[in-house]
């Protein structure tokens, strides 16, 4: 498990304003691209940096075009290898959870998410990345078929989580490179979703559970 304090020291938590967020993501994307290009292709970090560049660039474009949810699902599918991804956001005033999911869930999984959404968000540790530790993992999250759960924040408070269910068959588990991508999503999902809402007041795709 990765604690919150260990998760994002290398990533500056974005400022609240839209312009700052776009500037921050644009700069980060450029930085990852430069670092990736400096390394030979057979260097173990090269592919990780290339994926980080792609993720930061995709989020940057998504904030501009207000397609943040789709961008997150694309990053999870194409760069991490998980097509069953749920976004859960806490709605404190109504004591409810809002859900938006990628297209690949079956009805049983959707029902499991609906019934357990609050517990998925509240299951400890709530402020750090959970990654399934293997077949021996007997935690509640693992029992639901969850491979990883990453919290996201806005203004220093937890707003929700990205929940990864089954990984694609070619992925045996999440590795150190995937963790770097999860940290990026951890830091930027909250501000990007907030920016999306600022730009477009609609909430299509979200379901109240």
């Amino acid at each position, binding site marked *: 498990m990765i604690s919150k304090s260990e998760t994002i020291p290398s990533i500056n938590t974005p400022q609240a304003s839209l312009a700052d967020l776009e500037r921050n993501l644009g700069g980060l994307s450029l930085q990852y691209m430069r670092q990736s290009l400096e390394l030979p292709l057979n260097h173990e970090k090269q592919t990780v940096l290339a994926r980080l560049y*792609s*993720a930061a660039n995709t989020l940057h474009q998504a904030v501009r075009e207000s397609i943040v949810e789709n961008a997150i699902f694309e990053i999870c*599918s*194409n*760069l991490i*290898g998980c097509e069953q991804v749920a976004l859960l956001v806490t709605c404190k005033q109504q004591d409810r959870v809002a859900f938006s999911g990628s297209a690949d869930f079956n009805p049983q999984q959707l029902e499991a998410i609906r019934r357990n959404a609050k517990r998925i968000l509240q299951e400890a540790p709530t402020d750090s990345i959970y990654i399934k530790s293997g077949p021996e993992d007997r935690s509640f999250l693992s029992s639901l078929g969850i491979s990883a759960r990453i919290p996201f924040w806005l203004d220093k408070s937890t707003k929700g989580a990205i929940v990864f269910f089954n990984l*694609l*068959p*070619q992925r045996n588990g999440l590795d150190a490179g995937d963790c770097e991508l999860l940290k990026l999503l951890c830091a930027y999902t909250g501000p990007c979703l907030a920016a999306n809402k600022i730009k477009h007041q609609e909430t299509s795709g979200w379901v109240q559970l």
Partner: protein
Amino acid sequence: MSDTQYKSQRKTAQQSGQKILLVDDSSTTLLIEEMTLREHTQYELVLARDGEEAVEKAIAEQPNLILMDVVMPRMNGFEACREMRKHEALRKVPIIMVTSRGESCNVEQGFESGCNDYVTKPINGAELVEIVNGYLVAQGQSQ
């Protein structure tokens, strides 16, 4: 693959002036493919965002190799592959499918549609360059 091998293959490609058509509706994969191939090879790159555009560009641009996603709007990768194979000029062009699903049924479907090879997502830069060079260096040498 060693750096020396990369440089040698890069030089061969540079001399041959070969062209690759990259097809993907998602920018996440396309960004990595484009950055990797621009920096580590000298092939000319042409981009398309769906199957229909891919068929049109393949006919117009006559690429030496096509790297194509499977799940795309308008026309998927398998359909585009079958469509391309109907054209005499594209019958022997290597088509590499980029798939998120590496299960045997999906791979078989790809080969049945006429593709030559496949790579799975997430894209690994070294593997991508190796497979692309494997086809194009051989092609360049036979010309």
